[in-house]
């Protein structure tokens, strides 16, 4: 009897589900043919307002929902093409730019896209003054003057007047960033509260004219997009895109393997190798403009010694790390502008040479006992990279103490200039060399009170002359001269900068074989879902 009672209890908890499993079972996997499901870590997404959004995941979604004033050509990302602007002209030697607005363009709401919308969208970015606003305010526009300098001069014409002069290509490249997204002013203003220009509302809504409109965004869970049948480049073939937040790569692997996801975005090299061995999957490897480097704080007298910095550059096993550890996820790149960017320096003169490093350290007069701390984000592959570097530095005679912390903690320390060495990642804000040069080769005030917390400042690298040259390159109108200026700056930074520039990221996405037309592009917001088809 006693046993019977126990068996009854167990049967209830095990038997019933087991019977259900045998009898019914879950519905078969495979995503619907008109739906694209992407498995990705999207926990950085905090807003979808183009005037505020500056996160990788958010930027990617915003790019699907809005058409920008000018766009990068998805077929060749080095070329600018019209977006909301059909064409443009440079006036007054680059002091003014005029844009002709594409006719018959409509927002998702059905409202026509007008020159007023264009001017209002750009003005809104400047007036709200959120994080990415600096991309536009660098042109000298402020909340007080922007309406005067950014205005619709005809129903189909917008004119921008630059207060601070820059090369016209730089201005156009900046306008192809997320802040150049054109917003449906009529719709947004219907939701304005206390003169906030719809800021409170647009955070988790869409009001654009892009290939997709927002269906729903559940933070840390999923984003759902619905195709815009009136998209000016043609209605997308897929009707719905769902980006699921899957933080764990092993779970992403299972989902895409089973067919519950079409694309997995954050797999490890081993997982990618496993999947791509099968004809059911294909790999899309896309070099990104993201750079991995070591910052060398010049407040540390050891690292301020140029010979020591030079020695350390020869004590990194670049090729070994790429081959054995990073396996296709990063490639060797020893300058701060990634391959593919206008003006990029693609020389990689440094390789592992312990003897040379030792000789340089001996020449440096830094003494026999060399000890440095190394701050590293506590996630893969950063820890593994740091450990390998700790090993090779040790061979050269430099003792490295690793300090592993959460990435935001590392960043906090870095911003306070309290590190010795730090392993960090950089990605440009828009596809123009100025975006990165302005951080790596510009430090207008090296005091602790300096407000431009550029990467050069964070490493206390005092470079008044180089900062001036970086500023001049941004103004250069002649493309060849501009390119040469960036090449020269990179050479100097590569040889004597307060950094060890090491790798350029290659984003590896695994797609199920029936998915085509997915474009990744060189930055986080050049990912394009519009051309995706599923056979």
């Amino acid at each position, binding site marked *: *009897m*006693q*046993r019977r*009672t*126990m068996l009854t*209890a*167990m049967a*209830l*908890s095990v038997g019933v*589900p087991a019977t*259900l*499993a045998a009898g019914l*079972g*879950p*519905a*078969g*996997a495979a*995503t*619907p043919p008109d*739906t694209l*499901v992407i498995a990705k870590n999207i*926990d950085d997404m*905090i807003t979808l307002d183009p005037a505020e959004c*500056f996160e990788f995941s958010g930027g990617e979604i915003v790019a699907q929902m809005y058409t920008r004033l000018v766009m990068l050509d998805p077929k060749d990302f080095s070329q600018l093409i019209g977006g909301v602007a059909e064409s443009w002209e440079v006036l007054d030697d680059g002091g003014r730019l005029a844009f002709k607005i594409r006719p018959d363009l409509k927002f998702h709401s059905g409202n026509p896209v007008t020159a007023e919308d264009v001017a209002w969208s750009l003005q809104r970015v400047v007036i709200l*003054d*959120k*994080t990415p*606003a*600096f991309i536009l305010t660098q042109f000298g526009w402020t909340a007080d003057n922007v309406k005067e300098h950014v205005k619709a001069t005809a129903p189909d014409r917008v004119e921008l007047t630059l207060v601070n002069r820059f090369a016209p290509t730089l201005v156009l490249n900046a306008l192809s960033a997320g802040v150049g997204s054109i917003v449906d002013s009529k719709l947004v203003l219907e939701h304005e509260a206390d003169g906030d220009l719809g800021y409170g509302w647009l*955070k*988790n809504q869409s009001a654009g004219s892009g290939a997709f409109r927002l*269906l*729903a965004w*559940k*933070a*840390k*869970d*999923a984003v*759902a997009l619905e195709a815009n049948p009136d998209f000016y480049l043609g209605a997308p073939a897929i009707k719905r895109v*769902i980006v*699921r*937040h*899957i*933080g*764990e790569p*092993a*779970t992403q692997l*299972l*989902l895409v*393997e*089973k067919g*519950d996801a079409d694309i997995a975005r954050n797999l490890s090299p081993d997982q990618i190798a496993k999947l791509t061995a099968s004809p059911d999957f294909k790999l899309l490897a896309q070099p990104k403009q993201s750079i991995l480097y070591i910052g060398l704080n010049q407040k540390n007298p050891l690292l301020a010694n140029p010979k020591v910095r030079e020695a350390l550059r020869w004590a990194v096993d670049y090729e070994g790390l790429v081959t054995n550890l990073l396996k296709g996820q990063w490639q060797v790149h020893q300058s701060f502008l990634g391959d593919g960017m206008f003006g990029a320096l693609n020389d990689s003169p440094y390789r592992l040479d312990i003897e040379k490093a030792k000789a340089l350290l001996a020449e440096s007069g830094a003494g026999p006992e060399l000890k440095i701390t190394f701050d590293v984000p506590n996630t893969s592959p950063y820890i593994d990279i740091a450990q390998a570097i700790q090993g090779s530095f040790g061979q050269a005679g430099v003792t490295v103490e690793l300090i592993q912390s959460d990435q*935001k*903690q590392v*960043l*906090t*320390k870095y*911003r306070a200039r309290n590190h010795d060495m730090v392993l960090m990642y950089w990605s440009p*804000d828009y596809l123009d060399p100025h975006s990165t040069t302005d951080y790596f080769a510009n430090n207008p005030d090296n005091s602790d009170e300096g*407000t431009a917390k550029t990467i050069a400042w964070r490493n206390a690298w005092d470079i008044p002359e180089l900062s001036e040259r970086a500023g001049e390159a941004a103004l250069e109108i002649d493309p060849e001269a501009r390119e040469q200026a960036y090449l020269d700056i990179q050479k100097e930074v590569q040889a004597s900068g307060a950094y060890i520039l090491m790798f350029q990221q290659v984003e590896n996405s695994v797609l199920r074989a029936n998915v085509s037309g997915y474009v990744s592009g060189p930055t986080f917001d050049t990912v394009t879902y519009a051309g995706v088809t599923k056979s």
Partner: protein
Amino acid sequence: MAVASEQDNPAGLTREEPRAHSALRRLSGRALSLIASVVLTVFGLLVVTFFIGRVMPVDPLLAVVGDRAPEHVRAQAATELGLDLPLWRQFLRYLGEILQGDFGNSVLSGQPVLTDIARFFPATLELATAATLIGVCLGVPLGVLAATRHGQWPDQVIRVVALAGYSVPVFWLGLVGLLVFYAELGWVAGPGRIDVVYEYTIEPVIGLMLVDTLLAGDGAAFLDAFWHLVLPASVLGYLSLAYITRMTRSLMLAELGQEYVIAARVKGLPERLVIWRHVLGNIMVPLITTIALSYAYLLEGAVLTETVFAWPGLGLYITQSLFSADLTAVLGATIVIGLVFIGLNLLSDLLYTLVDPRAR
């Protein structure tokens, strides 16, 4: 006697009246001490969480405006969030806000913290309840079986099973479970709470997917939600089972040696009555505590399980918020967890009085 009684009772109350009066007084006294303990606990939780959160070596503005925001944007955000005030004033300001029912907005989701919790907590509640049901329905009988077959093979097997539940990392178990039962055998559905097909057709009502799908009258969606729940609930249920089994076994063993058990057996009581009524009845109070603790532990949110199964629950919410220094979200969620613990404590107390006459 009558005179004396009248003198002692000048108001002329009957004997029942003072008894009722004192019972009422006792009850209101208990209610007051309960409210005081709830308030003190929540306050203590808030103080500790707030100050730990603020002394963490992470710049809270990084989560709000990012790394590349110009200084004036950072300063503006700091003022809006009150981060430029001294720590004690920040705390007072926060207390003032929550007393008005405003728990603030989460930086990471841009939503009011209460809205977030209303979305994340039901996911955890659903998972933890299913897991605890599995743990109790299997764990208690297994513990009883192990104790009554002490030293024999069923006991050995059950001890190994329970020990494995304790020692195997739940993260690994979840991944292996997915690999075998989802990827290979296809018996259960994959990660997430429901298939993408239903994701945006089911209107959340109370947030429990099984209930919401039923309320929507969508049988297929209900089954889909069920198949998504089975594996994570089983994995967590195993963890809960391991704990409950071991506790039941040791409580039973201690009780089985008591004289009243020998007396009952000598008296000729059937064994099932001895075990299930007398022995189990006597260990019920500590067992309820065990189950309540296990349930409360799961309600905090099982971060690793939630990560593996892409289950948007409270554990994941708190962890990600903590790493991003999103203190508003962490504080809000901490209060919820504190209240859950207090609620479960009260529930256990209530159950004690039901199962143990001495507690009445």
